[in-house]
């Protein structure tokens, strides 16, 4: 913690968890989709479902999906801007279960190029967030570091190849986690790094054996 965690951030009110955190979750979902949003269905769980209008959580999520920052004064008008940009956003309330954080949200997104993804995350206080699920894979990352997300076959060496590309590019791994549904099946890996991952490394990783898809998640 430093002094700017106490005096700051500058944000649009009223709540760091229900407003600023919601913007960040939208930012992360957009980054995971990897292209502009065309259609979004947003499911709100728990406290988000109960109090979203009073906290402007819906406006904040919409702003986040348009790539705006938490202190953007356009946030209260983010629906108008989405309409102008022909982005369709619909809200619904959902129950993600008792074990989910009370400030949880699930996005079903379709991008301008037709890519789709489902992202679930939670706003865990003070504007900090965590993404907990991407396309039915349980994951866990905060977006505070640059990251790549791979979908790959669960085979020996699949992970080592990715990390070796990163090491040759001088990229240090801060945290990494691997998830699989069954042995030898489809697996997901999230690698959070200290340095941003450049285009060259990103493209090489996409072409590695066993890698089915790779996404780069980089927030400003």
């Amino acid at each position: 913690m430093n002094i700017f965690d106490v005096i700051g951030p500058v944000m649009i009110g009223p709540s760091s968890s229900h407003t600023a955190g919601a913007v960040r979750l939208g930012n992360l979902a957009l980054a995971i989709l990897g292209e502009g949003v065309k259609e979004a269905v947003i499911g709100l769980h728990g406290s988000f479902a109960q109090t979203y209008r009073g906290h402007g959580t819906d406006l904040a999520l919409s702003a986040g999906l348009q790539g705006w920052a938490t202190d953007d004064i356009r946030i209260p008008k983010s629906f108008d801007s989405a309409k102008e940009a022909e982005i369709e956003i619909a809200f619904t309330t959902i129950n993600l279960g008792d074990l989910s954080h009370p400030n949880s949200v699930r996005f079903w997104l379709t991008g301008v190029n037709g890519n789709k993804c489902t992202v679930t995350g939670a706003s865990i206080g003070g504007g900090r967030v965590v993404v907990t699920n991407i396309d039915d894979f349980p994951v866990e990352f905060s977006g505070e570091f640059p990251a790549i997300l791979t979908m790959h076959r669960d085979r020996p060496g699949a992970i080592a190849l990715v990390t070796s590309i990163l090491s040759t590019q001088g990229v240090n791994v801060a945290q990494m986690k691997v998830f699989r549904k069954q042995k030898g099946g489809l697996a997901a890996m999230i690698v959070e790094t200290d340095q941003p991952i450049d285009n060259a490394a990103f493209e090489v990783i996409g072409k590695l054996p066993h890698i089915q898809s790779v996404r780069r998640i980089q927030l400003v």
Partner: protein
Amino acid sequence: MEEKLSLQEWIDLAETENKTFGNFCIEFQAKELEMDKRVLLERMEEMLHVMEQSVVIGLTGITSMGGLVGGNGKKVETYRAESADKSVVGSVMSKAIMIALAVGEANASMGRIVAAPTAGASGTLPAVLFSLAETRGSSMEELGKGLIVAGAIGMVIASRASLSGAAGGCQAECGSAAAMAAGAAVELYGGSPEQVGHAVAITLKNMLGLVCDPVAGLVEVPCVKRNAGAAAQAMVAAEMALAGICSVIPVDEVIDAMAAVGNAMSCTLKETAQGGLAVSPTGILLANKLFAKVES
């Protein structure tokens, strides 16, 4: 687990080095951040400009998202203009009340604010700093220094207790904001580092046990008015400290007591809207109305 900070340790260092607490904090924090002192102060001045704008937004008499608050900062502004001779607390504190309400209302209506330390308690520091600045004729640089003192105090509270209503109740949000503002006020008035510590301790003692019980879970009732109360508590404590009054319980021990009280507090009283004013008959009525609006 990070090591606990100690406000007394910083106060002792400042006294030994014969520095004001503000100058000590700037040097200490600049070093910690590996940032030039000038740049650190400039960043703080930027925060002050945002705070000034929040006051302007609040005083336009806006209504909050949930519709439970709005227009009260403006009411105090009008009262100050038309009935100055009838002020109970005098011009300085009445201005603090006006600013606290205005910023709280700006926050509740999706205006831009500085979370200091949180969005819900964002009215307290601007209220104390700007109302005192007028009488003291303080420059932006002096106010920036006050903000750094406030930030340093907040860091200690965060490390020993909490700044979040969900973790420690409103004493951790408005209480901490008030303690930070009290320390800044002592700094603005040329008090010693020891006096900063006493002001912080006295403020927290006077706000110990305050629960977080927002109606309908929104940052509106009672949050906005509590910012005005917190500003007043800060000024009361700063006045006592500047007069040479000491806190019997040392400041770090008061912060630890706040942490213990926060831990002992029922979850219904920590931002869950399940206790206190949130479950008063009117609180429930308002919540039902708001949730019905969401369903429709």
